């Protein structure tokens, strides 16, 4: 599977559901279109939270996996397009 190179890193380990999403939302606001955010999380709820959040915001969930020290998500920022 392709590895992605992140532009920003968010360590949300130890945050409880749904705070990883809240923090990711704040982080994303400071990022440019097309940049990639890598997130570490330990809360199991993140497995369903991040896909839902990406669909809601239009950001793209590139990949997620379960590692020995928790969950890892790669999300690409996609700016909302007003007209298309």
């Amino acid at each position, binding site marked *: 599977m392709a590895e992605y190179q992140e532009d920003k890193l968010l360590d949300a380990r*130890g945050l409880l*559901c*749904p*705070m990883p999403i809240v923090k990711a939302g704040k982080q994303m606001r400071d990022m440019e279109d097309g940049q990639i955010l890598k997130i570490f999380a330990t809360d199991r*709820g993140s497995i369903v*939270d991040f896909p*839902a959040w990406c669909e809601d915001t239009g950001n793209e969930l590139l990949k997620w996996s379960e590692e020995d020290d928790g969950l890892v998500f790669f999300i690409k920022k996609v700016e909302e397009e007003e007209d298309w």
Partner: protein
Amino acid sequence: MTPAEVRAAQQEGAAVLDLRTPHPFAAEHLEGALSVQFNRADLVDRVEMVFPKDLPMIMHGEPEAIGKVAAKLLSDAGFNVQGHLEGGLKAWKEDGLPVVQLPSLDVDELKERLDEFRVVDARDPFEFKYGHVPGSGILSWTEAWYEADSAEDDPPIAVICGDEIRSVLVASILARKGKSAELVTGGMVDWVERDYPIEKGMD
């Protein structure tokens, strides 16, 4: 605070925040207690999103060190913390004070008995929209404290979220308001993992 002092404060309207993980809470907790799982990173943020700042609160952590730390974090953030339960659940029970359970069922049982429950999803609207248990409604965790009074509980409510953190919180709020509520363990993560049917959208 001693168990008797905590009980007296509860009768004056104080809320006990049970800081343990969902399963021990479901198995046994102080009557009227609310489940707010502890961590240092975001306990304050979560409590802020759920409860009014002037609500009198008492911490119940096991071991007691957790109750002490939570009391400090929340009172530093301006919450109305009255203290923490000394001696924990053990001392409470030794004083003959009431404990209750939160009934729970896993996703397999929920699927079997779906028509026996009103399923309530405790997550935020965007998560609910993305996929929820067919026929379920939403009582978002940030609204629950204010809206639980008007919840219908016949048939009884089964509360679900992504995993269990928010569902156990909402179920405990419903129970405190006298509603009949159960916890769905494993949450949507288990539901999706088993490929059970999903409904999308807001209605």
